[in-house]
């Protein structure tokens, strides 16, 4: 069953303007889904993770309503039909 990424406004330039990107390969973990997303939307990877592959400090990813920082980061397992939201964190923009 396909899973869906919800893309925030600033990153839609990389998803052809789409708010939703569906991954039909039924990925088992967020990492698999993320790799598929990066293939689908070139340029999005470096906006979300740093050189060490860690999620950027002020970016959050939610699987359903759970922040992946508390569920195993990219190892977070995905239920069938998962909805994954990418959101800038509230801590962003402190300057």
């Amino acid at each position, binding site marked *: 069953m396909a899973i869906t990424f919800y893309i925030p406004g600033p990153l839609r330039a990389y998803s052809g303007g789409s708010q939703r990107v569906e991954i039909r390969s039924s990925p088992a973990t967020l990492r698999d889904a993320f790799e598929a997303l990066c293939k689908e939307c070139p340029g999005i990877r470096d906006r979300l993770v740093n*050189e060490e592959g860690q999620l950027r400090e002020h970016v959050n990813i939610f699987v359903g309503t759970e922040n992946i920082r508390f569920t195993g980061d990219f190892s977070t397992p995905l239920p069938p039909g998962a909805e994954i939201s990418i959101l800038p964190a509230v801590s962003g923009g402190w300057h």
Partner: protein
Amino acid sequence: MLGELLGHYRIVSKVGEGGMGVVYRARDEVLQRDIAIKVLSSRTVADKSAKEFLLDEARAASALSHPNICTIHQVGETAGELYIVMELIEGEPLSKCIAKGGLPVESVLRYGVQIAGALAHSHGRNIVHRDLKSSNVMVTPEGLVKVLDFGLARRLRTGILGESARTIDSLGTASETIVESTGGLTGTIPYMAPEALRGEEADHRSDLWALGVVLYEAASGQLPFRGRTAFETSSAIMHELAPPLPSWIPGGVWAIVQRCLAKEPQQRYQRASEVQAALEAIQSASVVGAAASGEQKGPLTIVHRGIRHLAVREEDVLLLVGTMKGAFLLRSRPERSHWETTGPYFHGQAIYSMAYDGRAGRRRLWASTSTFWGTLLRSSDDFGKTWTNPQEANVRFPADCGMSLKNIWQICLGPPNEPETMYCGVEPAALFASHDAGETWSLVRGLFDHAHRPRWVPGNGGLCLHTILLDPAKSERMYVAISSGGVYRTEDGGHTWEARNRGIRVSFQPDRYPEFGQCVHKIVLHPARPERLFLQHHWGLYRSDDRGDSWQNISNGVPSDFGFAMMMHPRDPECVYILPIESDEFRCTPDGKLRVYRTRNAGGSWEPLTRGLPQKRAYETVLRDAMTTDSLDPAGIYFGTRSGELFGSTDEGKNWKMISSGLPPVVCVRAVTVGEPRAARKKIGQGQAVRTGSASVQEKRSAARNKAKRGKR
């Protein structure tokens, strides 16, 4: 003339007619082959010496043998008429092939490579074309290019063009005469280089200019410099910038065209073979790109809409202002009395560093942009309309480093003789280098692997490498400054580095004079005296007269020797500007007075410069890269504050005025003079900072103060 014999050539038909004469198709009755004969009009060859000269030129050109050059078989004279026998080319002039919107990029590259090859061949034999234009380039049905009329224009220039050249000298008064007197030559003026229009000796680099015009025309279907009259066209050639090529033309092609169209010959490519190689490089990249075209691509450039972009002209002074919430560009004529402001570019992003690369004919803005989606280096070749949008972060630590880029604090151009070299200093403290004009970047391992690095500690702004200085006397010598690591120097182009902090006192360690670990805020040097450096420390002002080997305190009479910004006068190696801050706890100007301090004796004494700057309740901070100077005479000095005010002086600091207020916190300011500044700058605005009374400065300030308080950087 048809059917007649000219020597042993029988004229068959008329092929064309141009400014030089009539071209016929003819039959060589001896060798039994078809050839072309150009019979030069008597008007072309005005007198005997002109005729001799033209014969010499044609003889020299006949020695050229290249697949992209129309071969000259013979030059001769019959019944007082000069004729040139040459290869007959079946095809069309390039000018006719160019459709309204330009040719496909592949064709532009294919033809461009061949024309450049032809020029390289002839220049190698000291033959300058002097009249390269799209109507002088033939394209065969097979796509082979043949350049016509090598060297033949020279005598014509002094013969026919002499009149127009004289008229052009007096452009200001006789624009109407030009149109009449130039007659058929108006078609050539659009290809003439600025130096040729000025009547200076044109050399092979004038051909490279013309090549740039032909490439531009082929790519876009338009000439880069246009006008209703010869006067307007000439004026555009000498003073205007070519409008950017359409967005579908690869940036690399635009960069090559721009470099060919540099106003000063020394700023252009110096050899046609370089243009050829550059075009070939894009050609091979496009082939690779075409093979992988199935792959989806994200946006490679971003266009800033809703901003009224600057229309930049030659000699304009630009201020590049990076703030915590975007970049702003300001433009002024050399008088620097009125500034046009545009922005914010990169709305909401922190711009820690900006730079301008005018080397090798480029007109490229650089900005480091930082947001929670990452930090990127971006460039614009059209003064901000479009910027690169790298898919992958272009400055990145290699995987084995175990660290990630936070910010880019400094963008620094390499030496003038290495126009493809650039450096940037980043946080966490490291140095990156590029040797392809910023396309790709690599970590300078020599510094990264230094034994001291694990013991460098972050200052309040983070652990950053914020300053890079090159020694103009020795290209392998460089300095970097790190907060908090200190000054490091290399003598071997970055392979090995040594700490150079002897004599710099620290207040935040038990050892007051450690080998390294100083919190250096800024270092500067003057190119005319590169062995001497000045340094603004976390506390303390210093000078070194021995390339950083030892430092002496020069805090003689400043209200505080704490501060960030420090700047060298563009011409006077004894003159340095600073902006003192009260202390590390109270990072504001002392006594609520905004004062720039200047030394004109290398730190022997300092004088405050305050006229036009607010001296009451001005608790400002000026960050380390937020003060700069232009290259004009008298020098313009500019600085921006954390409260978003931008001040400038056009008389080296004597008088100041507010240029802008209400900006986001200013992080960096850079001044740019577009093109080559005129030598006689002294006449303009000498000593005349445009006065803004202090009352009105105060008014502007109070308006600006109504803004919400901003957080700390």
